[in-house]
């Protein structure tokens, strides 16, 4: 049997994923909003034969009590703008954009992704989020954020409508016969007529079926509601587990839920986030990590921690232990990454400040610090243990740390037979080994 290979994504971030990364001397922070910054990232990823470029989404500024966090760096700027812009600078790279089902309308989003799939020649993916950040509600004329279970019900209906719209056009609907004057065979365009709990949509898209049929459907996060949703719709998961055993458990859990929805678990790829910090020796890599952590302002870490835990940590002593008992008493429904961090804090006796650094350093995803060989060993171990199907690489800073990965880690992965030497196809579905959905397919 052929060796299972890794799939790789690169997650964009203004500056870098390490929250201190933008202060690294090699980063030109005034340029992180410009086209060239993202173009270069995409071109590097394509040179490394990456499956995809991944862009996140946030609908509120990082702020506390009405003031932006001064040291807090920026979150992702609009995802579709970035992916559509770099589509022309690349030929093979998949382009995954994040858009919320809680704050959008299905017709608009179906049209947006169908357009991007055409524009990119079949390379787009949609990271479906329900938006976890409560503050977003206040920017969208709502008094409070929609409750989680309801958000996922809405998301399910939202995605069903999108699929219906993407499936509206038969492959041969466009006749474009100049003689008869018939442009479109309207009998081959099925209008959706949806009346549901959250939406009413009637009509068809104004675009023919796109090269991939549907964009690759991506999901991130791993709460119980999210897990069930992923088992129902996701073809790719951007996972957050930082430990191998947890990651393997998570992957097995989603896969085990898929048959109940009539889905083959092989048609799901799970890519945990991974921040590699590279050095030519382990010592050098550790030194780099230390330097990056020193660039990280503790206030940002404590802010990020408070947001993730939905618990205000500002008045606790920074050097005191993380008050896990208070946090647990104050909430429920924690995401797996929060649960995992609290367990680790209890186990290792971490302080509030330590936890803040941990969260801000890798944005609480996994990280590995070492030589290219060590990073490859780590990745291979995860793959072989069934902890993942690949990784969403989160470079600590752009561009140097990502270039290093492409120049030093990718060739080693290729030599070990863990990774493609070249692209075999032109679409994202092709890179991921996912089938093109046929018209009328459900689920």
């Amino acid at each position, binding site marked *: 049997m052929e060796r299972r290979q890794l799939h790789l994504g690169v997650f964009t971030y203004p500056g870098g994923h390490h929250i201190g990364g933008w202060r690294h001397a090699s980063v030109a922070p005034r340029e992180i909003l410009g086209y060239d910054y993202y173009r270069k990232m995409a071109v590097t990823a394509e040179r490394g034969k990456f499956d995809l470029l991944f862009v996140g989404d946030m609908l509120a500024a990082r702020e506390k009590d009405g003031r932006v966090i001064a040291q807090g760096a*920026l979150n992702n*700027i609009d995802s*579709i703008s970035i992916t559509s812009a770099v589509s022309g600078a690349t030929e093979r790279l998949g382009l995954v954009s994040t858009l919320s089902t809680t704050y959008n309308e299905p017709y608009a989003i179906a049209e947006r992704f169908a357009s991007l799939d055409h524009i990119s020649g079949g390379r787009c993916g949609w990271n479906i989020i329900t938006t976890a950040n409560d503050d977003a509600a206040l920017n969208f*004329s709502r008094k409070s954020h929609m409750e989680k279970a309801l958000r996922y019900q809405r998301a399910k209906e939202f995605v069903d409508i999108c699929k219906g719209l993407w499936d509206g056009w038969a492959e041969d609907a466009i006749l*474009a016969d100049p003689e008869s004057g018939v442009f479109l065979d309207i009998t081959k365009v099925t209008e959706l007529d949806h009346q549901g709990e959250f939406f009413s949509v009637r009509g068809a898209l104004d*675009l023919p079926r796109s090269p991939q049929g549907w964009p690759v459907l991506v999901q991130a996060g791993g709460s119980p509601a999210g897990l069930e949703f992923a088992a129902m719709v996701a073809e790719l998961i951007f996972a957050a587990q930082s430990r191998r055993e947890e990651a393997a458990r998570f992957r097995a859990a989603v896969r085990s839920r898929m048959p109940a929805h009539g889905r083959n678990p092989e048609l799901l790829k799970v890519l945990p986030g991974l921040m590699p910090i590279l050095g030519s020796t382990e010592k050098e890599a550790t030194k780099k990590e230390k330097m990056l952590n020193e660039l990280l302002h503790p206030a940002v870490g404590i802010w990020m921690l408070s947001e993730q835990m939905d618990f205000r940590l500002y008045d606790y002593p920074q050097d005191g232990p993380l008050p896990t008992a208070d946090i647990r008493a104050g909430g429920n429904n924690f995401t797996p990454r929060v649960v995992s961090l609290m367990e680790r804090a209890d186990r290792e006796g971490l302080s509030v400040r330590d936890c803040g650094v941990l969260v801000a350093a890798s944005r609480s995803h996994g990280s590995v610090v070492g030589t290219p060989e060590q990073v490859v060993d780590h990745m291979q171990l995860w793959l072989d243990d069934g902890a993942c199907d690949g990784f969403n690489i989160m470079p600590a800073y752009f561009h140097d740390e990502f270039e290093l990965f492409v120049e030093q880690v990718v060739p080693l992965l290729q030599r070990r037979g863990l990774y493609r030497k070249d692209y075999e196809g032109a679409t994202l579905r092709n890179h991921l080994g996912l089938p093109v959905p046929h018209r009328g397919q459900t689920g």
Partner: protein
Amino acid sequence: MHLLASLAAHGWHPAAWRVTGAAGFAGVMPFRTMARTAERGGLDAILLGLPTAPAMLRSRGTVDSLHFDPLPLLGAMIGATDRIGLCAYWPGDIAEPYHVARVFATLDHLASGRTGWIAGLAGPEELAAKFQRLDLPTTGADAVARLVELIDVTRQLWDSWEDGGFVADQSTGAFADPERVHPIEHEGRFFTVRGPLNVPRPVQGQPVILYRDRPSDEARAGVAASAEVVLAECPTIAEAQARRAEWRALASRHGRGPDGVRLVVRVMPILADTEQAAQKRAAELDGLAPANGNMASVPRFVGGPEQFAAWMADWHAAQACDGFDILPAVLPLDLDPIVDVAVPQLRRLGLRRAGYESATLRDMLGLQRAASRFAA
């Protein structure tokens, strides 16, 4: 004289697709080619996503009804061009200001200050079925009021980061200056938005606000508070003069001065080397078009490209408009001669600059860059 070009896959004549010889759907490539052609001619901007045919005709399958979402289409034009302005239609009927502000702020950064938002109301016939948002007004004074508030809140969000709010000082670790980033705390009739935006102030301060004016448009009085470039459909010089005077007076009433708004007349040229040949082309095209397919409110010009330059110069001299939004009847057939012949002619008349002199669309159009309203 401002010169804009509205792009469409085959052209703006309803029979364009029958004569281009191109396949029915060629994806994004024609747009890249046309954008580069327009840039070669030094045009101020290309306009993306304005509807090419009435909804009623589209449903019969006799016109090219294909329509890209203009936002990713604009994104795809950023790398294909260097200087030309890039504008996209995003009707306000159901739009949320945080989305509009965030997307256009991003696009404006990526495009180094070359973007404009074409606002307007698509109306119920375009949108009602697709969205069925029964909670939102689709017509009348309420729809207008919502649009006016939408534009205002979007602009407030762009202002929520003052110039200098994005610090990015590596030595101190200060990424933003909290004194210069402001919640907007907007509480209006249709929108409640706290802000601030999570994208720093756009390169242009605010992307240029264009407005798709419709015959007997009820929104003018309100939209005149913000609109900087009005795309008007006026069949005659007299109507354009009246429309321009109306918009200038309305802008003045909002304290913006008459030159705060530019009226651009939409025109569909059908060109050939001689007037006779152009008339023949027009007749052939019309013969191939479905009934009621033309946009009656958009004047057409039929003739040679030099004559078209003279025609534009006449309207401009009569103060009927500040420029034109050119809707080429068939692409690229009716865009190439404009770039190669009409524009050089306008340059000889002193009506067009020689090339690109400004980096941003706002500067190119001579529009003021406003300071953030939240600046102390």
